[in-house]
């Protein structure tokens, strides 16, 4: 058992596709919240295999893509100050803010370091007590507990030069905002497996309860995704009142999730409004450091002040609509025409798990 190859059997995948097409009484749409799912769906040809019965819509589930210009501008402003090093996960450095990206700021002399883990940033802070280390807290519920753990680690080590600039975001409020806006018809939601390993699948209970739509929490291998879509197809045949959250990723996800991680998040963070690219400001959709951890909060410690920031996308870029599922990447006039992974214009092409990047890499036959 390797927990990966076993779930890639092409024969099982074909059976699941057959079962989905048999169960589907009419065409239905599924929003895959998570960018990791978008990539797997494109990579394994699932979108094509189901195209006669299922519309798969990409959602806002790429933390880098939904980061607002204002947060990138603030990170750059910090990195440009003498004595401050900004540490970040790698996929953030090329994302454009209002005027430039962290990578461009680095080429102008700002101190930006890429880390694999927030604990690397803690160790860098410990190694150089003269510099202030600001870790960018980017990510959904999957990543937030690891950043919380880094703050606790810095505290345990007695560090006074480790800070977090939190731009963490919570996934259920974004899903609610998309459904509430009513801009697109979403018949069901493919629940993000790794987010849900932390939150537990009960976090998605509101989908069937308040919106009458099924949700299937899925892993990231092809037969994981197909069995989740099969569960959705079967659930759509039931009356709305009987629909439930299906957990087809039971090897990694439980009803309650990871209680240690949830406690740690609740200890270090408090809920706050957050600004999402494409969705605007959503109340209760973000995490800031709580008052007890003010000494580690880059937003409190370093007054960033007003930056000339813009919420507008780059000219012609339609990432904001891609993130809401309103258009598929090839519908953007820049897609392949001036915007590609080597020269990305919008964040959905920059990030390895952005929808545009997935369509560019694997979607040739569908354009």
């Amino acid at each position, binding site marked *: 058992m390797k927990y990966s190859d076993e779930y890639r059997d092409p024969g099982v995948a074909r059976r699941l596709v057959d079962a989905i097409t048999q169960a589907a009484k009419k065409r239905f749409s599924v929003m895959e919240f998570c960018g990791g799912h978008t990539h797997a769906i494109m990579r394994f040809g699932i979108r094509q295999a189901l195209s006669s019965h299922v519309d798969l819509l990409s959602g806002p589930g790429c933390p880098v893509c939904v980061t607002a210009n204002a947060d990138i501008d603030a990170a750059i402003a910090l990195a440009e100050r003498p004595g401050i090093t900004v540490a970040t996960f790698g996929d953030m450095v090329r994302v454009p803010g209002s005027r430039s990206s962290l990578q461009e700021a680095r080429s102008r002399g700002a101190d930006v370091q890429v880390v694999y883990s927030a604990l690397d940033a803690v160790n860098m802070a410990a190694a150089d007590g003269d510099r202030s280390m600001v870790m960018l807290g980017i990510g959904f519920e999957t990543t937030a507990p690891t950043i919380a753990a880094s703050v606790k680690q810095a505290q345990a080590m007695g560090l006074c030069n480790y800070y977090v600039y939190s731009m963490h975001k919570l996934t259920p409020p974004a899903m609610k905002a998309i459904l509430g806006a009513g801009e697109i018809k979403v018949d069901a939601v493919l629940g993000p497996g790794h987010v849900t390993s932390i939150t537990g699948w009960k976090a998605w209970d509101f989908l069937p309860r308040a919106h009458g739509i099924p949700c299937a929490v899925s892993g990231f291998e092809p037969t994981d995704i197909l*069995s989740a879509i099969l569960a959705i197809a079967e659930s759509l045949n039931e009356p709305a009142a009987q629909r439930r959250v299906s957990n087809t990723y039971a090897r990694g996800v439980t009803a309650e999730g990871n209680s240690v991680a949830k406690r740690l998040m609740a200890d270090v963070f408090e809920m706050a409004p957050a600004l999402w690219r494409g969705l605007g400001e959503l109340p209760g959709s973000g995490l800031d450091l709580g008052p007890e951890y003010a000494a580690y909060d880059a937003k409190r410690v370093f007054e960033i002040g007003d930056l000339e920031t813009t919420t507008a996308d780059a000219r012609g870029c339609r990432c904001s609509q891609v993130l809401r599922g309103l258009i598929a990447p090839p519908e953007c006039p820049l897609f392949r025409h001036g915007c590609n992974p080597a020269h990305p214009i919008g964040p959905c092409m920059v990030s390895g798990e952005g929808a545009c990047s997935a369509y560019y890499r694997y979607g040739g036959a569908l354009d």
Partner: protein
Amino acid sequence: MCLAVPLRVESVDGAVGRVSLGGVLRDISLVLTPEAQTGDYVLVHTGFAISVLDEKEAQETLALFAELEEASRAVEAADPRTTEGATAQG
């Protein structure tokens, strides 16, 4: 960004686990999964184990796939229109 990979815990030392990633040994933090033990598979995300994979559940999913496969074969065997070639194409 929420990328996480299933890796086997080769050894545990306090809150640090050693995993093998493509033959390279790497230390990860187990603070979020204190229950993880040597031999367990964990989902690893940015240097942290975020979930201990449940072998029983993993096997059950595979058993369901096997049932699906068997049921489909039985249907095909009973259907005179189905040929060997059609089975191969699924």
